[in-house]
């Protein structure tokens, strides 16, 4: 394994934990937001329900922010390579978790929006796809959290 400076490794962890979640959040918002704009011109009364897709997408960035903040507060403790690697792993976990959730929300969300425009009563069953995708990020967050707890 390449030996790195512990401090630099910690910073890379922070980069991962804030960078990837914001990209995932952006993807979800770009995909769902544009789909929503399309539906909004035809059926504006549905927007208040469909906004859940964009808000859940935005939450991904907030999870990243939370982990990044926790890692920053742990930076002074990252003197050894071992702790630095734990931080790196925490960053990778939240990155992968939110990345998966972002992909899920983008696909399920845009389909949900299209389907709801066509048949509003299908909303309550279709929304499950979006919220279950979002749960993936929560799992990543919990585990990432526990890893940070061991630093």
């Amino acid at each position: 394994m390449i030996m790195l400076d512990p401090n630099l490794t910690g910073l890379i962890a922070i980069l991962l934990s804030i960078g990837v979640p914001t990209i995932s959040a952006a993807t979800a918002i770009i995909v769902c937001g544009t789909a929503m704009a399309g539906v909004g011109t035809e059926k504006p009364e549905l927007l208040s329900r469909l906004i859940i897709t964009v808000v859940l997408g935005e939450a991904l960035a907030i999870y990243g922010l939370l982990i990044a903040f926790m890692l920053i507060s742990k930076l002074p403790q990252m003197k050894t390579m071992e702790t630095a690697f734990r931080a790196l792993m925490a960053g990778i976990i939240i990155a992968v978790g939110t990345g998966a959730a972002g992909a899920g929300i983008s696909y399920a969300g845009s389909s949900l929006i299209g389907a709801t425009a066509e048949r509003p009563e299908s909303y309550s069953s279709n929304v499950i796809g979006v919220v279950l995708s979002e749960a993936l990020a929560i799992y990543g967050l919990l585990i990432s959290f526990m890893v940070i707890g061991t630093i």
Partner: protein
Amino acid sequence: MAEMRKLIAIVFEDDVDEVVRSLGEAGIVQFVDMRQKLDEWKGALTPHTVPAQTSTKCTDLLSRIDASLKALNLQPGIARYEKVEIKQKQTEEVLADVERRLAELPIESLAKASILVTDRKPLLDKISAMPADEQTEIGRRLLDLRRIVDMERRSIEEGTKLGEIREDLLTLQGTVKVEREVSEAEGKFARTAKTIYFEAWVLDDDLKEAMEIVRKATGGNCVITEEPAKHGEKQPVMLKPAPSFMQAFEKLTFSSGYPSAREVNPVPIMAITFPMLFGIMFADVGQGVIFAALGGLLTYFKRKIKLEEAGDIVRYLLVSAEMFILLGLAAIFWGFIFGEFFGPSGVLHPMKLGRIGPFYIGGFEPMHEPMKMIRFAILVGALHISLGLVLKLFNTIREREFKRAPIPVAWLWLLWGGLIMWSYWGGISSISRWFAEGGVMLAGLVLAPLVLLVVFTAIAEGAMEGIGFGVEVFAETLSHTLSYGRLMALGLVHSVMNYLFLVLGGVEHGHFPPMSIPIIAIGTILVMIIEGLIVFVHTLRLHWIEWFSKFYSGEGIPFKPFKFT
């Protein structure tokens, strides 16, 4: 929830229009769509099809009435409806009568005169505005003409009474619209060779009136009976109107479906659990006060402003005015528990409510002791899910499905058994000890209820369903309980976001320097809008997915009696 009865009637073909018309005037019954139920009758009944020319005729007459109103420059108004004479019982007769009366109105000649008035006027005005000496002979002649036209107009306005014609047209319009609705409603009926069969839901209190109406409309030539809803039959539901402060929660609940007849209406319970879960994630005394004050202000404006006149966003805010107060109060409560005042500023100290084993209820700052917070979140989740399961038990008993009653009990056993295992053996990381040392405990607390769940479901539905359900319940219990971890995550996010602004403002140990106030104000606005929305959506999600999936089908149909608009 008001009791519903099913009205069943057989009437002669010739009487059916009058029956539907009378019921529509009373507005107390909801017709059952017989087209979906014809299979039960095995060919004894066929769908009652209203002839296509009836609806074509309605459309034709309506557009002719509209055109007449336009030609006479009359304002379109609310279509009036007058009870048609009893001798014209059938839609076709009524429509023919309308057509005759429409033809009798002197619309064409009036329209010509009104065109004459409106078209010549600008030219004549122009000429009369010229200086007198420049007016030519033609001008003078035109002025004479104008006088004639003016007189003509006055005679039209006063003599033929345009207002009366307008009234007539609107009455005709109302009559045609009613007939159109009548023939649309009849599309739901079934028929034999000469008779029409229909079913309709009616409130228990209105039953006698509805039967009397049918008897009167047919002159007694009808077969009419009633029965309560059969077991498992879909019936429309009429809920008591919710008090004003629950309206927002009602909207949130019904977005995921309307409660069915024998189901607990979760709105009043949600009015308590929703603010509670919101408060845990948005725990803050200062921002809670702002939220509650905002809610109070909106409640005040709600009484002043008419809801229909407000814009979309304002209307949403006004409808949820009381909800804001509840959310604010819950945020204040949990703010005291977790010691947050505009973030972890050190002004307040966390209050400890109690401790159950490894679960601390309050008495710690979530930001500094996240592990305590996550245990607390899981505990709250287990309690919330348990509430859902108790409601499921209640629903199964109310539906008299006693075979299924043990299922939620075993589920509760599994949930709390798992939770006890988790806390007794010190978390999931020591799972090997669960099997090695706690084998008996594991069997009693987790495996036994799981086996019982499979057995009971197998008895109620069949062996394969039982196994499938067992797997589903195991996965669901785990993932849904874990999902309440978001209470911790978002609670922490809330603290952290506020903390960032506290650091920027230089707040330390509860001392706010004057310079920090604007920074905290900006931070508070940001947090309350962005974070508030996210927390709100997550609270909603916890209710829709984790909570409703336990007990709420949302398959009910609201009771919408057939009524002329």
